[in-house]
């Protein structure tokens, strides 16, 4: 049984998610702002935290900073109504292991939570698109080539995610196992989080400028 904490400032949304999640997931608590989230994570020690991006008191990024900064071993899945590049990239760079938008179905969300609980990454089609765009857009010399570019295989996997394929379908398409797909996605996540090419953040902010 996966133990989940829901962090969101909209009560209606919290109860909606609680009702939608399958039987294999136990919601151990809810929090509505940064303070109460940090406190609840320390007390309840959930496996996965469903984290809203926009919240009073600094938002999801602040929760990530305080909890992961203290060395806690908890996994975060960002769940937001926003699909602005700045928010998506920001929260992933902050340490979340996945990003899904709030219009995701209950079943898909259950799958995503299980995947994050197992230590894998969860990319929505849009996040995959952002990553492809961000890693493709720059010709600038990189400091660490291993971290700063995607392999051909990773690119293929991301492209299929962006096209709306589920992990199982990707595995079938590329003649690899689902586990291998997960490995590729986790590797992309690691690059996304560790790559210190500042183009990433700059790219995300530039997307915001109108």
């Amino acid at each position: 049984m996966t133990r989940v904490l829901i962090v969101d400032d909209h009560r209606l949304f919290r109860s909606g998610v609680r009702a939608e999640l399958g039987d294999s997931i136990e919601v151990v608590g809810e929090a509505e702002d940064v303070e109460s989230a940090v406190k609840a994570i320390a007390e309840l020690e959930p496996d996965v935290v469903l984290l809203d991006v926009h919240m009073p008191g600094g938002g999801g990024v602040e929760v990530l900073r305080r909890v992961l900064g203290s060395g806690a071993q908890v996994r975060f899945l960002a769940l937001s109504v926003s699909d602005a590049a700045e928010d998506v990239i920001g929260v992933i760079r902050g340490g979340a292991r996945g990003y899904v938008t709030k219009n995701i179905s209950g079943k898909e969300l259950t799958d995503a939570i299980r995947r994050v609980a197992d230590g894998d990454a969860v990319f929505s089609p849009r996040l995959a698109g952002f990553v492809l765009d961000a890693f493709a857009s720059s010709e600038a010399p990189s400091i660490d080539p291993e971290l700063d570019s995607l392999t051909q295989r990773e690119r293929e996997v991301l492209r299929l995610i962006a096209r709306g394929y589920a992990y199982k379908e990707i595995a079938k398409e590329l003649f690899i196992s689902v586990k291998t797909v997960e490995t590729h996605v986790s590797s992309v996540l690691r690059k996304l989080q560790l790559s210190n090419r500042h183009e990433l953040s700059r790219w995300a902010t530039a997307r915001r400028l109108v």
Partner: protein
Amino acid sequence: MADQKTLAEAGGDAPFRRMMRPMEGRLLGGVAQGLATQLKLDPVVIRLTFVLLSVVDGVGVVAYAVLWMITPRMPYEGSNRPPRDWSQLAAFAAIGIALAAFSWLTGASQGGIGMLPFAVGGIGALILWQQADPERRRNWMSGATKGMRKNRVRTMLGVALVAVGAVGFLAVQGELMAARPGLLFTAVVVGGLAVVAAPWLAGLWKELQLERRERIRQEERAEVAAMVHDSVLHTLTLIQRVAHDPREVTRLARSQERDLRNWLYQPAQDADATLAAAVRRIAAEEEDAHGLPIEVVCVSDIALDSAGKLAAMLKAARQAMVNAAKYSESPSISVYAEVEGEEVTIFIRDRGKGFDLEAIPLDRMGIRESIIGRMERHGGAARVRTEPGEGTEVMLTMKVEKE
């Protein structure tokens, strides 16, 4: 300035009619016009008098400025201010300049020229003053006096300089010394005035900046309010009215969500100019038409080509979306558009019932003509992948030269 209101109210029935500056027929501020009405003279006479006096030691300019300041503007009915008669204004200005030049050349008037900078500066300040409304003026005044109090040393220094300058200037005038020391003392006067006025002017500038920022903020707020009112409130009302029809409710909510998202997160793009924007627009239109969510992901972008290759590709993409929406029975459609160098690829995928490609009769235009045929005619390619029960994916590729 403070008694402007009470005096204006006293006008009308009072035996002494208060002089007003009319808006119609004014050349500069309407002072001459107002004075002419008051004295029952022709405005041209008054105007010429002002011009003549201006040449003589700048008295006319100062008098005009003072009158402008103390005379209230006549209330004008109508949305736009009446335009000035620029040609007449130019004529009077020409007379003034000619006279000034003449008197300066003949040496008739020394002081007049010397006074001109002051007159010009004063008029500039007056224009600023006149543009402001009474509320704002009060703010400026209080800000200025506050600033004065704070910088007492500077004010004292400035006043001292002005005094020294003025005394020196008078002494020079009295002894009729050469022009050089006169200019020197004039510089001292100006310097002193600048020191006194600098904080006030700086405050004024800051005040103007603040107001500008406030105005921008208000405009933004108005834009948000308009957005919420025009679309969000409207949609919510519609949703309540069609509450019995879940499909329509979903469609309305979805369409509103898309609008808001675009407004919040998407850079303003011209759908007629770039591929990504065009794909998004087409998806939005078909989403509205069929009430089925279409998820669009775009990676990188390219300007639409003039040869129409991409336009044809977009038409094929639209047809693929329509097919998926109409026949697939899929709960949603994924669209992915990618530009890689000179190659553009668009995928349209559904998870519906799929079909047997071979079994489609030759006369069915949808796929053969509108998608595959169209792509091939324009030098691209289309590939359809489908199996009964496996959903359908249409892949369109096109090579274009970057322009």
